[in-house]
């Protein structure tokens, strides 16, 4: 699998760590709503199809990414930084034709 890190470009799966389901809302830290904490901690939607999830580019820039990826085909339809980086500009991409 290749994941296109918004900072580093397309990179091999081996450089990434799955950080889990992004369809979960962490309750307010001060919340004492035990049910909400339980759901957040243990219960998963386990989507078949396009799944929102977190990945860390742990073997690269170490940014956490929020992706939408199909759990059927592994096709990735979107990748973005979880933590906004307003100053970020993608690097210039490779031109074709260079020696392999």
């Amino acid at each position, binding site marked *: 699998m290749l994941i296109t890190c918004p900072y580093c470009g397309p990179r091999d799966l081996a450089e990434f*760590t*799955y950080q889990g389901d992004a369809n979960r809302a962490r309750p307010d830290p001060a919340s004492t709503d035990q049910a909400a904490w*339980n759901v957040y*901690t243990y219960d*998963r939607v386990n*989507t*078949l199809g396009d799944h929102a999830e977190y990945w860390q580019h742990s073997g690269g820039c170490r940014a956490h990414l929020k992706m939408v990826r199909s759990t*059927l085909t*592994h096709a990735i339809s979107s990748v973005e930084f979880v933590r906004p980086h307003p100053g970020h500009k993608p690097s210039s991409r490779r031109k074709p034709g260079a020696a392999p």
Partner: protein
Amino acid sequence: MAEYSVFSLLRNAFSAQPDWKPAWRKPDPKPEYDVVIVGGGGHGLSTAYYLAKEHGITNVAVVERGWLGQGNIGRNTTMIRSNYLLPQNQHFYEHSVKLWENLSHDLNYNVMFSQRGCLNLANSPSQLDDFARRGNAMRHVGIDAELMSVEQIKAFLPALDINFGGRFPVYGGLMQRRAGTARHDAVAWGYARGADRRGVDMLENCEVTGFLRDGDRIVGVRTTRGEIRAKKVAVAVAGHTGQLMKMAGINRLPIESHVLQAFVSEGLKPFMDTVVTFGAGHLYVTQSDKGGMVFGGDIDGYNTYAQRGNLPIVEDVMSELAAMFPGLARVRLLRSWGGIMDMSMDGSPIITTGPLPGMYLNTGWCYGGFKATPASGWCFAWTIARDEPHPYNAAFTLDRFHRGLVIDEKGQGSTPRLH
């Protein structure tokens, strides 16, 4: 239906095999059953078998969307053991091993359970302490376990590099002699045939598309072969639990579906005669009766329903296997495949009544589903028949997570990829 024995085999061999009939019937669905079991995998089939055998409930259908045993029962690395740390798992898995020990006779079907042992190698002193804790815990509930010294291991596994290339020396190992392997497909076929002989209907190519409800209560299933009503509906669909339960309106469960890859090498003359695991990485390997080295490692580690893994795990597993058995570097990988694991939030299974009235749930098998097959069906059948769990599966509830009564063998918390 002919009883299987060496005599019937001989008689048929010299008379053009006339007695061999289908191992199970291919009936049409009846409009209603006492119990409908969704999922014709190992656990669904064993549940049907024990419902009939132990509880006399034979008006049962096993509903399978494809062909029997197409899921993880035919995709695993065939290992069987009860070398668990936590008492809840120990009692359950030991019950399973005991059922395994008599399964071929029970089913009149040779499932080839071979008690060649399971050896966990400790690659650090602290790991050896952990294994001692586990082995002693096993001994205190009546399960066999022994520690093997480095010298014993060397003699037992001459092909092993006892120092793993000098990087991870072996400090000893935890051995369960009664552990072993079985022929995975035969387990599915044996249970199917055994249940069929007791009157259970195997409904293949019958995909569940929804549940029939009476208020909150589940009263049957809607399938591609029509509606089937049932007094009780039991779900044992492993990696597809989440999808099925969504049809019943349950949108979140303490389950994630992950892919686990498994591998087999080309056939070899006997190379080793046990199951062995590598403590400093994650590798388990055995040799099949056909001679292939059968092995696996970690799950790929992300949610998926695709029975297709990726390359990094393949590379990890091969490097660990070659580190363990350097002579295997020149042996060739024959085939790889993937199965969808229902990874629970504590690494332990769920066998319970509910979550809706009229429904029963069996899931969360993580890496451990194959070895559990007999006990899973046995306990699930009990739970379905009596509407309450057997003491063996009393702890495997759905609410244990919220209550903090987790059964966390690895101590990793609610991160399924780490279990």
